[in-house]
Every structure is written in C-alpha cells, then in structure tokens.
C-alpha cells in the first residue's frame, strides 16, 4: 500500500494544482504533497530495512534498499525545493522576471513539478524494466516545460536540445530493454509481464542469452548515460540547468541524475551477473573517465556560475559511473555514499546560486565582481561551504565517498583510473574553488540584501544536513546505503 500511496500523493498534488485558483492554494498543495511524500518515503525506508523488500500488485511495484534510498533522496530534495520555490517564484513575480501571464506560469510550475517528482518515483518503484523506461521518458516530458519556464529564446533552445537529445538517447535505452527482454525469452514463463521484472531477471541473470545481454548493456549505457549527462552525450546539460528556474534545476541536477543512474545500476546488476563484472566495468570506466576529463577545461574557463555547476554535475556523474565500473564491495559502497552526499550538496549549491542570481539579476562572474559574502552573508557562507564540500574538502562528506572510491580503484587494480580520478579531481577542485572564491569573497559591490525567510530557511536546513552527514550518518540511513550497495554486488 505504501508504494501506491507514495506514487499517488505527488500525482494528486499535480492534479489539484492544475485546478487551484489562487497562488496560495497551489503553494500549499505543493508543500503538503511533498511533505506527505517525504514522510511516506521515510516509512518505506523503515519497511525496507525491516523486511528487505516491499512489493505490491503481484510485484508490479517493488522496492528494495536501492529504490528506498533513491526515493528518500528524491522526496527530501523535492520538499526542500518546494519550500524554496515559494520564495523564489514570489520574488520572480515582484521583480517582473515572469511578466507575461504570471498566473499561467505559476500554475505550470506547480503542476509540472509534482508530475516530474511522480515520474521519478515511478522510475524507482517500477519493477518491470519496460515500465521503468517509460517512467524515465516521462521525467523528460514532464520537465521540458519547466526548462522553458521563462519563455526566452535561449530557454526554448535549451528545452529543444534537452527533449531531442534525451529522446534519441532514451530510444537507445528502449532498444536495450527490448534486447534484454529477448535475452530472457528462452527461459520458462517468457511472454508474461513478470518476465521483464527486474526481480525475476536478477534471479535468472546467469541463464540470460550472453551476446544479447552484451548488446543490451551497451545500448542501455548509451541511453541512460545520455539521461545522466555522461560525456559525450552531455551537451544538453549546461543549457537546461542554466535556463530552468532554480528549484527545478536543483531537482534536475541532483535527483533526476540519480534516477538515470538508478536505471543504469539495475542493468549493470543483470549484466554483471550474466557476463561478469569486467565487460560492463570497462565500458563504465571509459564513460566515467571521459565525463570527468571533459568537465575539467569547462569548469576552469567558465564565466557563468550556473553552467559551472552543470559541468560540475557532469564531473560527478562521471565519478559515480567510475565507481560502478570499478565494482566490488568498497566501490559500490562509495557509489551509494557519493550519490547521497552529492544529492544534498549539489541541490544546496543550486539554491545558493539562485539566491545570488535573483539578487544580482545575472549569473556571470565578471558582472557580480565578488563580495557575495558581505552582501548576502548567509547565502555567501553556505555557498562557500557547499562548494568546499562538493570539491571534496575534508571534513565534508564528499571527501569520504571520493576517498573510498579512489581506494577501491587502487585496491581493485585500476591504478590508471585511480590516477586519472585524482588528476581530474584536482583540476575541478582548482577551477571551482577559484571561481566561487572570487564570487563569494571580496568587497561588497551592492547594498546588503534583505532577509528572505522561505529561501533562507531551506538553505539553513540543507546546509545543516550537509554539515551533519560529514560527521555522523544516522544508523538507519547507513544501513540503507549499505543495503543498496549490497544489491549491486549481489551478496
């Protein structure tokens, strides 16, 4: 029941917002919907920890540790972004950033965001790989009009790129799914709906048709890799992230990335159980290294801080794919830790960037000329802290997860990958620190900004979480992360 409720709540919130008359109603529906969804995700995590797996409707919906972890991350960020969005959109309306038809635009935002979250939850709760594909495609369709929110020429271009590259990429993933279905066709019970269920296929992975699985994995890697923004299919990412309204960009860059990686991880499990870890591992390492490598020059020369964060997300998608490619217990634990930490830190960074953007009305470094810390003390401080966290400075949590991944790389005999990891990491470290340091520090170039309760409170909460998880992970969350890593390694 919990699974159906978790899907139903955001869907209902989207439907209600479509018919709500006043802005206050839409805000309240969104806040309430995401708060309930967050509680439900917590309950689901508890159930999964107690019973191992939860399923409904003859295994049509299915949740294990991995699904529960991603669902929990999705709903928590959705809730924080919903709080932030209230202040953000009111500010936009007052400053005239959405001057033509503000009511219609607000309705669009408050309707599409819950639908977007619904489709992401459907990705992690669907057991059938075909249904999972349809849900991932739905995340693109639900978020295209969030990218065009401001209706500028550039946002149309960004949305077009996002939709077409995403559509072509995902068609490859569908082809991969069909081939995976074919690879199980000679087994008993084929042709039924359940024969494409992950839980069924994972149990029989050793008997799948090997050449077919080989092809299926390549196609799925290209497809979901496009959705995750792995190089060289990453070109839509900086455009979409810098054009979408900031709360949507935060969701896109953190939890939608998780959903795409989730799809990839599910197929990795099947492929590694069928063909061994070496074949998928090599491909994943290739794409991971390429993504990390490509992001370095773009981070170094970046002029726009939202695009900087987007290239940073490409780097982190590369890190996570690399961790999956290394394989083994330690790297998979590192992957799940990194996914959790990255989600918190990256969405926090986007929210900080949104505050700066709205106050200065630009996202170019040279126009702001530094001093954010003096103009907006809270935003500046959190921004600096979050950037230090995400580039892997101790004592923040991402240092731990990246350290675990590098250790696993050297221990697993991937010395070249480990060395490149450190090299690229240093490049991104230098670039991001230089840019954000010059943005945040320095003399004030503008009058001190007023306090903004909605946005500041979400920054404080997420910032506190980021500090806390650097020192202490709650035992149930750690169990969930360990369980998710165990699903990947299969023991």
């Amino acid at each position, binding site marked *: 029941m919990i699974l159906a409720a978790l899907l139903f709540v955001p869907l209902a919130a989207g439907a209600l917002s479509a018919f709500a008359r006043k802005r206050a109603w839409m805000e309240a529906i969104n806040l309430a919907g995401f708060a309930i969804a967050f509680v439900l995700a917590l309950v689901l995590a508890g159930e999964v920890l107690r019973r191992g797996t939860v399923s409904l409707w003859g295994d049509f919906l299915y949740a294990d540790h991995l699904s529960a972890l991603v669902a929990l991350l999705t709903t928590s960020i959705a809730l924080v972004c919903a709080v932030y969005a209230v202040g953000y959109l009111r500010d936009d309306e007052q400053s005239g950033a959405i001057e033509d038809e503000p009511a219609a635009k607000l309705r669009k935002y408050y309707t599409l965001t819950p639908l977007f979250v619904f489709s992401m939850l459907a990705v992690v709760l669907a057991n*059938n790989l*075909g*249904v999972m*594909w*349809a*849900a991932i*495609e*739905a995340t693109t*369709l639900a978020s*295209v*009009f969030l990218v*065009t929110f401001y*209706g500028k*020429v550039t946002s*149309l271009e960004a*949305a*077009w790129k996002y*939709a*077409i590259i995403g*559509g*072509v990429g995902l*068609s490859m993933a*569908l*082809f991969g*799914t*069909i*081939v995976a*279905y*074919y690879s199980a*066709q000679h087994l008993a019970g*084929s*042709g*039924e*709906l359940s*024969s*494409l269920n992950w839980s069924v296929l994972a149990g029989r992975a050793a008997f799948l048709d090997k*050449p*077919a699985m080989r*092809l299926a994995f390549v196609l799925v890697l290209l497809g979901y890799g496009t959705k995750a923004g792995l190089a060289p299919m990453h070109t839509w990412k900086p455009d979409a992230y810098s054009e979408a309204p900031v709360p949507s960009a935060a969701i896109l860059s953190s939890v939608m990335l998780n959903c795409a990686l989730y799809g990839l991880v599910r197929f990795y499990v099947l492929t590694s159980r069928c063909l061994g870890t070496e074949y998928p591992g090599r491909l994943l390492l290739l794409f991971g290294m390429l993504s990390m490598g490509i992001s370095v020059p773009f981070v170094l020369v970046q002029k726009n801080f939202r695009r900087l964060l987007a290239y940073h997300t490409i780097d982190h998608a590369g890190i996570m794919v690399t961790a999956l490619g290394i394989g083994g217990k330690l790297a998979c634990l590192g992957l799940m830790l990194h996914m959790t930490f990255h989600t918190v830190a990256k969405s926090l960074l986007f929210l900080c960037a949104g505050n700066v953007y709205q106050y200065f009305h630009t996202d170019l470094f040279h126009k702001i000329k530094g001093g954010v810390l003096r103009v907006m003390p809270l935003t500046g401080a959190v921004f600096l802290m979050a950037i230090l966290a995400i580039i892997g400075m101790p004592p923040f949590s991402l240092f731990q997860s990246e350290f675990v991944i590098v250790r696993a790389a050297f221990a697993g005999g991937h010395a070249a990958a480990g060395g490149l990891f450190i090299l690229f990491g240093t490049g991104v470290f230098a670039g991001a620190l230089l840019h954000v340091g010059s943005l945040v520090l320095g003399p004030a170039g503008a009058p001190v900004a007023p306090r903004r309760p909605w946005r500041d409170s979400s920054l404080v909460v997420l910032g506190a979480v980021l500090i806390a998880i650097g020192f202490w992970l709650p035992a149930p969350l750690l169990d969930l992360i360990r369980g998710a890593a165990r699903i990947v390694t299969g023991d």
Partner: protein
Amino acid sequence: MHTFQDPQFGDKVVTLMAALVLVLQIAMAGQRWIVTNIRIFAAQSFLLAAMAFTIAWFNHAAHLYVAAGLTLLVKVVLVPILLERLVERIGIRREIDPIVNAPLSVLISGGLTLVGYIIAESFQRPEQAGVAALGHNALAVAISLFLIGFFMTINRRKALTQVLALLCLENGLFLAAISLTYGMPLIVELGVLFDVLVAVLVLGILVYRIRETFESMDVSRLRRLRG
C-alpha cells in the same frame, strides 16, 4: 493445410511488408516535402500495425492484437493528424532542409541497411524454425530503420523534421520488439505509446513556440529599421 495457417505463407507476408517498410523509410530519408513525409510515416506505421497483426494471427498472441490496434490508433491516426495540424498552423510546406542532399542521403541509408543486416546476423538462431522464427527476418529491417532514423535526426536542421526522424526511430524499435519477442508485455507497449503521444504533443508545442518566437524576432527587426 489452409493457406492462412501456413507459417511459410506468413513468413512471406511479413518479409514482404518489412521490405515495404524499409522502402518507405529510405523514401522518407530522401525527400523534401514535409506533408508527404508525415503521410509516409502514417503509411509506414500502418504497415507495422499490419505486421503485428499478422504475427499475432500466426502465433495466436492475443496481446499483440491490442498492440497492433493501439499502433493503428496512435501512430496512423492521432500523430499524423496532430503533425499536419501543426504544419498548417505554422504555415510551412517545404521545410526539410537537410545537411546532406537527397541522393547522398539515400546512398547513406542504403549503407546503413547493410550495417543493419550485419548486426542482425548475430541474432539468428538456426535451431528456431517455423512459427517461432516468424518475423526474425524483420529484425534486420528494424535495426536499419533505427540507424536510418538516427541518421535523419542528425541530418535535419529544422525542428519539426527532427520530430519526424525521432518517430521513425521509434517505429524501428516497435518493429524490433515485434520481430524479436512478439512485442513487449502489453503494459509496456501501452506506456511506450502513451509516451510517444505525449512526446509529439510536447515537441509540437515547442516547435510552435520556437516558430512564433523567431517570427516575432523578425518583426521587431523590421520596426527598428523603420525608426
């Protein structure tokens, strides 16, 4: 044995239709009129639905009848109507502006078909014959469709024609699904078709707004010159 129960006859029918689908795809890659392109797409989708129907008939696969019917509804009726309306509203007739010219496009499509046949070789299972192998010939066509669709998305510059290329990619996938596995489970097929329909709507609105924005940009330029 009655002709309509003879699997060899079924095999011939399916192969013939697959060949026609491929011819239509190459025709689409090589011509420039957008309305014709939409109609060729409708005809191709109709042939695919007919293939699904034939395979369902010879294999007694009930869910494939439903998939065939839905394909007929969505891809032969709804999507072409939506696209033709869009073409009418934005007032373009001949918008396909390919990077590579038509003869070369056809040549490249032919080459990609060859690649499709080579890839499909690895899926041949000699131990399967008769009814079970029905439609396996179509796999090569499906892969070719996919590759040509891929080429078409890259080759076309204008928004609406890219949507058509994306739809062709999807047709290739549908053919792959029916020829490899007699279609995906019904709920998956439903989900995919729903996504196709929503994608056409979303992309259609986007095309319309791109067109609108760029026209208004032209108008503003005219005003500036007057001042």
